[in-house]
């Protein structure tokens, strides 16, 4: 009973701020809603909102952008985190190792808004760090409006989020590598393996679970990305950086309509997509563990 009493505040918080909004959103997505306090009107429309979402070209643009972000980030952040962690454990010792570790982890401590503002200045075409650097090294031809170019803006923001989150992966890999049984590594050295063979056949297989966990965290995290885009580009130019999260907010608060049924349908659809991906990943992990 005492356990229940101590858990009660957390349970209440979870129910009121996570479970209830989730189900309410799911419920709202089947209605055409005009939220107006005591005069709110709910008109049941069945699957009509979902049909409208699926036929909305901007939703598909946002979906493509979000999936591109999630896939590219996972492919870059995780290997980069591993490489940094490996270098720190093998090539640098003591104070140098601590210094580099602290430098890389600092970006993780910054909020998305701060990171967005910081990198907006880096990408600023007239006086930003990137164009100034290109000018210094004589590559003026490459200078451009990075966040104003629809072909480049998304990749610039992906680079920004990679800069922010690689440190997080590095720290977890550092812990993982440090906790590997040293006798296995020593035995492999005695057996005459080179560094690449050790990484490929011993270290990486032993860190499989950690890698899968980071993959899920990275992928799912990027499927919900919002703050960085809202501050840096607001979803533009030409919807090239619009993600599903920013599109939901735009439709809910900035359209000439008070209907929240449509944005609720987008949010519900996306929740189901993310849930499917998480279930798939979990199934893959369980299958691999079973095979082992």
């Amino acid at each position, binding site marked *: 009973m005492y356990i229940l009493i101590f858990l009660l505040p957390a349970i209440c918080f979870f129910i009121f701020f996570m479970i209830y909004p989730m189900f309410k959103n799911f419920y709202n997505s089947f209605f055409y809603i*005009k*939220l*107006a*306090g*005591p*005069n*709110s009107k709910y008109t049941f429309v069945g699957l009509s909102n979902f049909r409208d979402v699926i036929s*909305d*070209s*901007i939703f598909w643009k946002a979906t493509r952008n979000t999936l591109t972000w999630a896939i590219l980030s996972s492919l870059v952040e995780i290997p980069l985190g591993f490489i940094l962690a490996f270098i720190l454990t093998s090539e640098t010792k003591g104070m140098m190792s601590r210094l580099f570790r602290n430098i890389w982890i600092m970006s993780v401590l910054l909020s998305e808004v701060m990171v967005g503002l910081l990198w*907006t200045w880096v*990408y*600023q*075409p*007239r006086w930003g760090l990137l164009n100034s650097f290109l000018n210094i090294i004589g590559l003026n031809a490459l200078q451009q*409006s*990075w*966040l*104003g*170019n*629809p072909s480049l803006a998304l990749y610039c923001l992906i680079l920004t989020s990679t800069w922010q989150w690689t440190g997080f992966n590095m720290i977890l890999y550092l812990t993982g590598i440090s906790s590997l049984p040293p006798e296995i590594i020593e035995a492999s050295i005695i057996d005459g393996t080179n560094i690449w063979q050790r990484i490929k056949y011993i270290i990486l297989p032993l860190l499989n679970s950690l890698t899968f966990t980071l993959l899920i965290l990275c992928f799912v995290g990027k499927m919900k990305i919002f703050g960085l885009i809202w501050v840096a*580009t*607001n979803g*533009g*130019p*030409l*919807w090239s950086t619009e993600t599903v999260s920013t599109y939901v907010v735009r439709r809910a*608060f*900035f*359209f*000439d*309509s*008070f209907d*929240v049924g449509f944005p609720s349908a987008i949010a519900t659809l996306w929740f189901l997509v993310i849930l499917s991906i998480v279930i798939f990943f979990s199934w893959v992990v369980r299958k691999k563990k079973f095979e082992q």
Partner: protein
Amino acid sequence: MKYQKVITLFLVILCLVVFFGGSLYAKDKQVTLQFWSHWASEKAKREFTEKAIEAFEKANPNIKIEMTWYEKNQLMQVLRAEMSIGSGKPDLFYLDPKPDPQYGGSPWVNEGLVADITEYLDKNSYIGEDLKAWTYNNRLYGIPLEGGLFMIYVNKGIFEEAGVQFPPANGRNFTQEEFKDAVIKIRDAGYVPLAAGVMDSAISTDCFISACLVRELGKEEFEGLIRGKISWEDPRVLSALRYVSEITKLRTWPDDVLSMRFVDGFLMFSRGEAAMYADGPWMFSRAANPIEQGGLPGDFKLDVVDFPAKISGEYNDVVVKLVAGSWVVSAQSKHIPEAASFLRFISTPEWAKEWVKTVKGQTGIKGWANSEEINPTLGKAQRLQNQGEIMMPGLCSYLLTGNLRETWMETACKALIGGQMSPQEVIDSMLQYAQ
């Protein structure tokens, strides 16, 4: 002795009851209105509002107004959240009258979130054209506080330096070809010809492009385009967008216009980096801010011109006017008569003159005549308005709705002027959502 104590205690209790009971009674009679408005960063408008509130409270001691200032985007989000839960707050708030009632009307009015205040106001207190922005089926839903022309504001100093003749030969506007020549000369002199920033709001490019459409189509056919009676494939639409594309290639806009915010465009103009800036009537009040808040320095040579004229065009005298910042009463307010009484209080010639004097902009409230003595540039703007054929409102972003509006803002007002899309691509995008 015992009786004295009882009487003393009784008197003390009586005093307490009278004091607190009286306070409570007085509190019941005291009405406190919550007023949420845009213009948090505009000193002149805040000054006007606070002066008006002080005078109103003096004249109405039983009504107190609590003011909260926001920037527009934040205000709209907060209002939606507050009204969706029906908290009854705020009583008064800022609202733009868009879309115009003739084009579907504001969703805030259509959804019953704004109170009908017809019986509390005198329609004769307002300029007829301006009042239409808040008139739905002959009922009044707001007061047209801020209004005026969309114009091109000019830094005459840069024009002199670049060797561009100013004012234009007809005193009103450059021709489209003269405008191109001016752009080339200004760029050669090292300045940005026309400041703008479109990342968060593309209104300064929308007003220019909408004006180009008006020059081609005129009032009635522009309206036809918005209503879907004229196709976006009409050759005149293509002609207007082609002109915009041509001046884009001449680097009329800042090179990083797509990553600049709306306020960055204004700051570029106020800092003397750009020769021109296209904007609405709120420019004057922004210009009156202290320099450190983006206002114009005292020696800034400010002037105004109308948008470029089409050579041999029929519609070169059409001027785009707009009612912008307005105040309305919330339909969820528990004090609608009291809130409306504040709007009635400021709808007088005295307060209209006070607005023009303090804010240095126009208003839809009657009673101000000549703004020349307050600000010569404002007086010139007024003359442009009086000499032209007024079109209200003539801005696509104020008339289009839904996905069509979003597509217009992203394609024409951003991608086209950023050189990312051709005129035909803009038209093809609009056709996707056009009725």
